[in-house]
């Protein structure tokens, strides 16, 4: 009679897992690495906590962003566990700073670039397995358990926002799973957002006193970001492609 008993036990465990995980807000797929360590993988209906009424977005004021400041990049790296290994061509880069000079006027600007969380994301369109997906609240993610590492999303992304993990990774953060041979990008710190927080880059930018990044619900007319967008002109990058990015830039 051992077998039925074992079956019941397994069933009970999966029930607990399911309940636990929906409570945690997110991932359908979970992997137990060792006792006490569980990786969430943003799987399937990871949108459990996503509110279809919201659309999370960023507004970046290029005038306030300083060329010599890298706080947003460092904060993202610390928060999500990707780092500089001395191979810039293959290192993951969830967020990067770009310095620009206007061709006609010579005006110099600096800005952070990351996943633009498009309303019509090309990475989601081209992904053969549906591993690239957009949550109901507009956050574009990669399900690390469904990504086969074909890199077609990297070919399709107009913003070079995605990185391929080129070598085995260690010491991952449990809230930001990574895997050799899969593709990753900015998650808009979904683990913080789902708990009512804001992305690490925005927080770090604010701490420097520059305040160049604003996070909020684009669908809520009363939100600070919606008010700012209403007041000042802004653009989405590659607006010609009509992807309607969730990240907008003012004074660019």
């Amino acid at each position, binding site marked *: 009679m051992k077998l039925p008993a074992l079956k019941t036990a397994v069933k009970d465990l999966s029930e607990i897992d399911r309940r636990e995980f929906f409570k945690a807000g997110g991932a359908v797929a979970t992997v137990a690495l060792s006792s006490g360590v569980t990786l969430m993988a943003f799987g399937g209906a990871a949108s459990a906590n996503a509110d279809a009424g919201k659309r999370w977005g960023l507004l970046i004021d290029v005038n306030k962003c300083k060329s010599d400041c890298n706080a947003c990049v460092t904060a993202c790296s610390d928060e999500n566990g990707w780092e500089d290994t001395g191979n810039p061509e293959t290192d993951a880069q969830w967020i990067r700073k770009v310095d620009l000079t206007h*061709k006609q006027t010579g005006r110099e600007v600096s800005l952070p670039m990351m996943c633009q969380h498009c309303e019509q994301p090309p990475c989601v369109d081209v992904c053969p397995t549906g591993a690239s997906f957009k949550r109901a609240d507009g956050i574009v993610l990669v399900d690390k358990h469904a990504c*086969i590492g074909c890199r077609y999303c990297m070919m399709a992304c107009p913003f070079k926002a995605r990185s391929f993990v080129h070598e085995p990774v260690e010491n991952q953060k449990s809230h930001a799973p990574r895997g050799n041979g899969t593709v990753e990008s900015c998650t808009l710190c979904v683990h913080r957002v789902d708990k009512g927080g804001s992305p690490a880059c925005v927080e770090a930018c604010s701490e420097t006193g520059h305040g160049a990044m604003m996070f909020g619900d684009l669908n809520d007319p009363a939100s600070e970001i919606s008010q700012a967008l209403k007041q000042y002109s802004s653009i989405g990058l590659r607006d010609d492609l009509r992807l309607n990015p969730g990240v907008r830039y003012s004074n660019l």
Partner: protein
Amino acid sequence: MMDRTIYREIKLTPVVWLLAGVLGAFIAAAGLALLYVEHNGHIVTGMNNQIVWGLPHVFAIFLIVAASGALNVASIASVFGKIENKPMARFSGLLSLALLAGGLAVLVLDLGRPDRLLLAMTKNNFKSIFAWNIYLYSGFFAVVGAYLYVQMARGMAPKVIKQVGTAAFIWRLALTTGTGSIFGWLVARPGYDAAILAPMFIVMSFSFGLAFFLLAISAVYRLSGRYIGPNLIKRLGRLLGIFAGAVLYFTAVRHLTNLYAAEHADFERFILFSGGFFTQLFWIGQVLIGGVIPLFLLFHHTDGSNRKHVLTASVLIILGGMAQIYGIVIGGQAFPLEIFPAYTVNNGSFDGAIANYSASLPELALGLGGVALTLLIAGLGVVVLRILPLNLSDRNIDPSKPDF
């Protein structure tokens, strides 16, 4: 009077065994390369976050495109009723299956997670042309497999062969449209984003596949001491010339269209003039070696050396084809994305800069392994199945149309 066609297996001679051993060694090397890359990650390849598809994709796409074109001879026989091609139709079908298997093997084994292949087959996003291609490729195996079967089955009505042959012909057009669309539908990159890539890939398949077919069938016949009529080769050579010319035509239209659009001018300047290696690859590799010289060889030959000219042209077309696909795949990625058209980029993580790529040995080994797998499958086919006729005499050529 037409010869009766008698199909027989190729005999296993020591030379055939030796060749099988060499091909096996290449496949083993590809296996080692795969294990090495899987163990260490793609860090040990030349690929990076700028050039995400490297040399394995060049090989894979070449083989997949050629797979569709290797079916030409069978299609011409069954669909367009050219009777002199009929004895070669079985080999045409076999070779196209072998090419597709070789190409897909390379494509799949270069995935970041090849162990998740089953997932790619069971979980599909049908908005992705990649997902469609999974069905186009596996469907090709089924349709061409059925076509091979009806050709080889005893007492099969010619009408059935024609119907299945027509289905295979339509399928291969769809397949190559799908392969071209992988690039054509990438709207964000200036090097792609062109509907003409789909029909251009079809024409490329006609040319590369026929060149591969001519070399393969000549090699097998030479190896087995069987006879091929010089006029058969000459006529297929003329057809190859038309296809090679058509590839040049589509290439010209593609670049002229891009030149007309101001937004693509920088990319065209890169490929056609200032791209260094990529510019050389285009003009010397694709246009001269893969186009102009083969055209000259195929249409301006002296009597008595036709076969040699056709085979030399076939080799050059394959080299030029590899150069062309390298230019499309790697060149298209090397040119930077235009995220800030009004600005110049001072510094960023490789933004605004031409990306570097140099292929590594494991990538080359994987690609060559795909070619070896193709040849081994085709070789195994002609050894165990009655694929090839004892001789391919010129007597099957329609006497009312002696010169195509």
